[in-house]
């Protein structure tokens, strides 16, 4: 039996080539995702190792401060070769007149306890010297300006540059200063940790024990323990990234599985006579089943191994897209085995259905004249199943509108899946009418080939529908995501327009640096400005209710400059002694209008609100008057993320006021002037980035779908060799024959794309209805440009996919084709 399989594979490698490509792409994605996970982990591990290199003991405290007294005690402990205090000082840099976030560490005296390497120049030796991170691009001799906590500017001259890993998210400083300079910038700052190196012959454990005996009230970890802790803290981040990619790997494999299913179905149909002959000669059903599966295994293994290595490329590409600094492609045995196993498994599972069909080929069929594998017309069962799926979709969709968001989202997902299933089930029924319509649309331009293409597509509707289905899935996902993103964008924009009556906001470029004192007052006096208001975020202590991130706002601005959506109560202004709570906080603490919050000063709840969350106008979980902030601030901590809202006078235009405002702000480099349009831009940028990544990821699934379409056409062309020759003999030109195949491909793609778009857009509509709230509306808008690009790309790709099959059809010599078989 094996011999038959091998001989069959050898004789017809091309028939399986394209199905192999589909699996290969799918596995490339899977292994790419796995390798990426390993890579993220490896880069985190590398960064952690770097950060803690040379560290034999790591001292931290839960309560109290690590200061120089502790540092000196540790230095005196037996077995300590050297010890250094580590503190990360926020040092915003002045770049092009604006402040930019940056941080500094003091230069450790012990060269072996430095978490960076000198890349050029030298390290700072005097208090006015600085070494900068290589990626900032400063040359020795340049001068940099840094802000201290009070906003005072300090100047340093660059003497060198250094390098260290940055993409592990474990805090990488941009500046290295002398200890004196660091102390000057942030006097009295405690160390976040103290690290120590052991004297020769002292083990990490001995050192840790010795320090623990010498200094009390501190936590001492060995270097290794500290590294694994740090690694543990960084891990969840990389895990969520991996999950995200895995979801798309699953999508790719589902689509690849569909392609395999279709391709083996066709192969089995075409080989019905051979299979029947095998049965006549004595093969039993299990042998026929095994022969088809064996073929799938071979295809699966070969394609998966190739895919595995292609996956290394995918991993590298994904790292580039997500902007990693250094690209790792570690290939672990586990990822290799898993990718190949998944590839082979999907291939075999997908081939199992046609393999079962193969066992149903009756031996007598070997004796009959070959019939073309014509599938039965849509059965009543199919239509019923599609209608049931559709009703489930409508039902779940209708229910989802009436319930709370979480249940609604779950129901919406059920509805989406049901809708997709309905579309996939009804596919074969749609093929006939759709291609006939397309044919009459295309016929005037394309002529006879359009008619032939429609006939060809319709002669085996199930096959045509199956090739289209792979595309439907991919496009449903892309169009849903695209439409939903457009809806969120539009919703944010509308939400902001409704809730923010200001024309400008002034925000601080560095989150925990305050704006200049009384900036609101200064700006209010700028000609053309009608009113300004101040806003800042802070941690508010609401007594027994808990500590929450809240916002404080000039009370009179509420209701005039800021209009959060009011769910209950009134919010036309906010007085001292009053508080407005967000929907989330109301749900969590069960506070309602009229209640009194027992904070340090009692606060009466006047409203429950819901608001759009935009940079500079974040209203947090609760809102109080600015005058109240001091009184309820947690531990008296200062506020952060300060902003000023500016509204221009009714007579003047925002564009004219802008230069005047900029002029007024020229002395405050930390202040950043934003128009409402800027804010919208800031809100959508991350969304756009995610959308682009999603497009890139789904593109692969769509690519696989096109491999599937090319595959089906290729097999159909081979199947119709004699018929094509007959058409040629009767006068169809080569070009005409090629055009027929191309047109069929375009028809299939249009069918798949149309179904996918309908499912995707309908799902997006449902999501918009479910997720939309008054404060954060999600609108249903059709992003015509992006959807148009999708359809155009589908048609183009369909033409490309048909190139090879079309060439093959046209190239066939007349006589060999007639004599074939």
């Amino acid at each position, binding site marked *: *039996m094996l*011999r*038959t399989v091998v*001989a*069959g594979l*050898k*004789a*017809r490698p091309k028939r399986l080539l394209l199905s192999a490509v589909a699996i290969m792409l799918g596995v490339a994605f899977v292994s790419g995702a796995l390798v990426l996970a390993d890579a993220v982990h490896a880069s985190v591990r590398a960064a952690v190792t770097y950060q803690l290199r040379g560290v034999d003991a790591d001292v931290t405290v839960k309560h109290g401060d690590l200061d120089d007294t502790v540092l000196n005690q540790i230095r005196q402990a037996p077995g300590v070769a050297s010890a250094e205090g580590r503190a990360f000082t926020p040092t915003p840099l002045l770049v092009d007149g604006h402040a930019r976030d940056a941080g500094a560490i003091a230069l450790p005296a012990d060269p072996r306890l430095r978490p960076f390497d000198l890349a050029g120049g030298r390290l700072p030796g005097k208090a006015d010297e600085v070494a900068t991170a290589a990626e900032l691009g400063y040359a020795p001799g340049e001068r940099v300006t840094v802000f201290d906590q009070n906003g005072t500017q300090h100047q340093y001259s660059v003497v060198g540059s250094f390098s260290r890993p940055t993409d592990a998210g474990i805090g990488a400083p941009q500046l290295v200063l002398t200890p004196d300079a660091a102390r000057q910038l942030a006097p009295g700052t405690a160390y976040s940790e103290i690290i120590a190196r052991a004297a020769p012959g002292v083990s990490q454990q001995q050192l840790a024990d010795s320090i623990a005996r010498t200094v009390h009230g501190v936590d001492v970890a060995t270097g290794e323990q500290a590294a694994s802790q740090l690694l543990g803290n960084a891990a969840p981040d990389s895990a969520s990234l991996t999950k995200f990619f895995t979801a798309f790997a699953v999508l790719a494999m589902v689509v690849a599985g569909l392609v395999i299913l279709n391709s083996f179905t066709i192969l089995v149909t075409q080989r019905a*006579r*051979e299979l029947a*002959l*095998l*049965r*006549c*000669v*004595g*093969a*039993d*059903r299990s*042998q026929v089943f095994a022969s088809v599966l064996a073929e799938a295994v071979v295809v699966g293994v070969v394609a998966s191994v190739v895919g595995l290595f292609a996956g290394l490329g995918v991993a590298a590409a994904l790292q580039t897209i997500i902007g990693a600094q250094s690209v790792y492609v570690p290939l672990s045995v586990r990822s290799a085995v898993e990718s190949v196993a998944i590839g082979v498994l999907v291939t075999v599972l997908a081939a199992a259905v046609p393999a079962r069909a193969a066992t149903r080929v*009756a*031996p*007598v069929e*070997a*004796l009959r004249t070959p019939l073309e594998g014509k599938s039965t017309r849509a059965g009543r069962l199919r239509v019923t199943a599609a209608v049931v799926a559709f009703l489930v979709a409508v039902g779940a969709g209708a229910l989802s509108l009436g319930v709370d968001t979480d249940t609604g989202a779950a129901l919406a997902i059920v509805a989406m899946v049901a809708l997709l299933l309905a579309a996939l089930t009804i596919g074969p029924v749609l093929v006939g009418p759709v291609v006939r319509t397309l044919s009459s649309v295309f016929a005037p331009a394309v002529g006879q080939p359009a008619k032939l293409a429609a006939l060809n597509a319709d002669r085996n509707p199930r096959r045509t529908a199956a090739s289209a289905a792979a595309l439907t899935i991919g496009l449903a996902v892309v169009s849903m995501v695209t439409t939903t993103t457009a809806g969120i964008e539009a919703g944010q924009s509308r939400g902001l327009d409704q809730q923010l009556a200001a024309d400008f906001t002034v925000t601080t470029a560095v989150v925990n640096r305050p704006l200049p004192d009384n900036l609101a007052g200064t700006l209010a006096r700028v000609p053309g400005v009608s009113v300004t208001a101040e806003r800042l975020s802070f941690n508010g202590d609401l007594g027994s209710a808990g500590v929450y991130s809240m916002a404080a706002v000039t009370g009179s601005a509420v209701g005039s400059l800021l209009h959060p959506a009011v769910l209950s109560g009134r919010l036309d202004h906010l007085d001292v002694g009053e508080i407005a709570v967000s929907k989330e906080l109301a749900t969590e603490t069960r506070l309602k209008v009229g209640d009194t919050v027992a904070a340090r000063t009692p606060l009466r709840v006047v409203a429950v609100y819901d608001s759009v969350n935009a940079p500079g106008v974040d209203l947090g979980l609760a809102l109080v008057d600015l005058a109240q902030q001091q009184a309820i601030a947690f531990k008296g901590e200062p506020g952060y993320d300060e902003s000023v809202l500016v509204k221009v006078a009714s007579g003047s235009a925002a564009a004219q006021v802008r230069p005047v405002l900029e002029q007024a702000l020229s002395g405050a480099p930390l202040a950043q002037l934003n128009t409402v349009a800027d804010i919208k831009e800031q809100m959508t940028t991350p969304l756009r980035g995610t959308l682009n990544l999603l497009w890139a990821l789904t593109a692969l699934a769509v690519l696989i779908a096109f491999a599937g379409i090319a595959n089906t056409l290729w097999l159909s062309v081979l199947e119709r060799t004699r018929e094509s020759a007959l058409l040629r003999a009767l006068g169809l030109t080569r070009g005409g024959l090629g055009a027929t195949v191309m047109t069929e491909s375009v028809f299939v793609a249009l069918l798949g794309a149309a179904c996918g778009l309908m499912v995707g857009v309908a799902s997006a509509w449902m999501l918009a209805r479910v997720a939309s709230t008054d404060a954060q509306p999600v609108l249903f808008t059709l992003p015509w440009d992006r959807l148009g690009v999708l359809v155009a790309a589908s048609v183009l790709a369909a033409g490309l996919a048909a190139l090879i099959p079309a060439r093959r059809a046209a190239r066939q010599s007349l006589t060999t084709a007639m004599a074939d078989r």
Partner: protein
Amino acid sequence: MDSPAAVEAADVVKVYGHGDGAVRALDHVSVAFPTRRFTAIMGPSGSGKSTLMHCLAGLERVDSGQVRIGRHEVTRLSDAALTRVRRDHVGFVFQSFNLLPTLSAEDNILLGLRLAGRDPDKQWFDTVVDVLGLRARLGHRPSELSGGQQQRVACARALVGRPDVVFADEPTGNLDSRSGAEVLGFLRASVHEFGQTVVMVTHDPVAASYTDHGVLLADGRVASHLQRPTADAVLSALTSLGA
């Protein structure tokens, strides 16, 4: 009948289709095919020759009646059991599409045995291959063989497992008279010299003249039997049936 039948049909009825469109292809056919004999099934086109052969070979289910191959009553066997009977006791030569295009001649000949997991009898294999003059062609693919050679490979495959019976449906239908004569001569030799049993469907009087015995079908019934048929006798018998 001088020896026990290798294959036997008893009161077999086969109907294709339902209702108005139903065709009674076999209408209470009872016939036995003795061992070590070369038998022809003859009759006009549409008389039910192929149908009878398919039923006898267990390729087609009968609507009523029994079919016995060797010791096996096949009408009620499961598909798996029927496959085993076919594999071990029956050989086939068809008019066309006898060989898997992807396998060499040798692999095609040995296909049945390999499927059954049986080892070929080396000596018998050599005998069959040499008698059929296929020695030099064993490594070739079917597409590299002439029609006559392809039919001879099919004969070799049918015989190499020493089945209880070989069924041949118009084995010479696609061949010129010389190649046809070679194949027919071999089938006769396999019966008379090697003791095989062959049942051949044909409507060619010349082909029938190679056989020991002829069964004539007309409208799905056995019309008559011919002992040691000659071409002339077959022709006149067929003409008398109005073919």
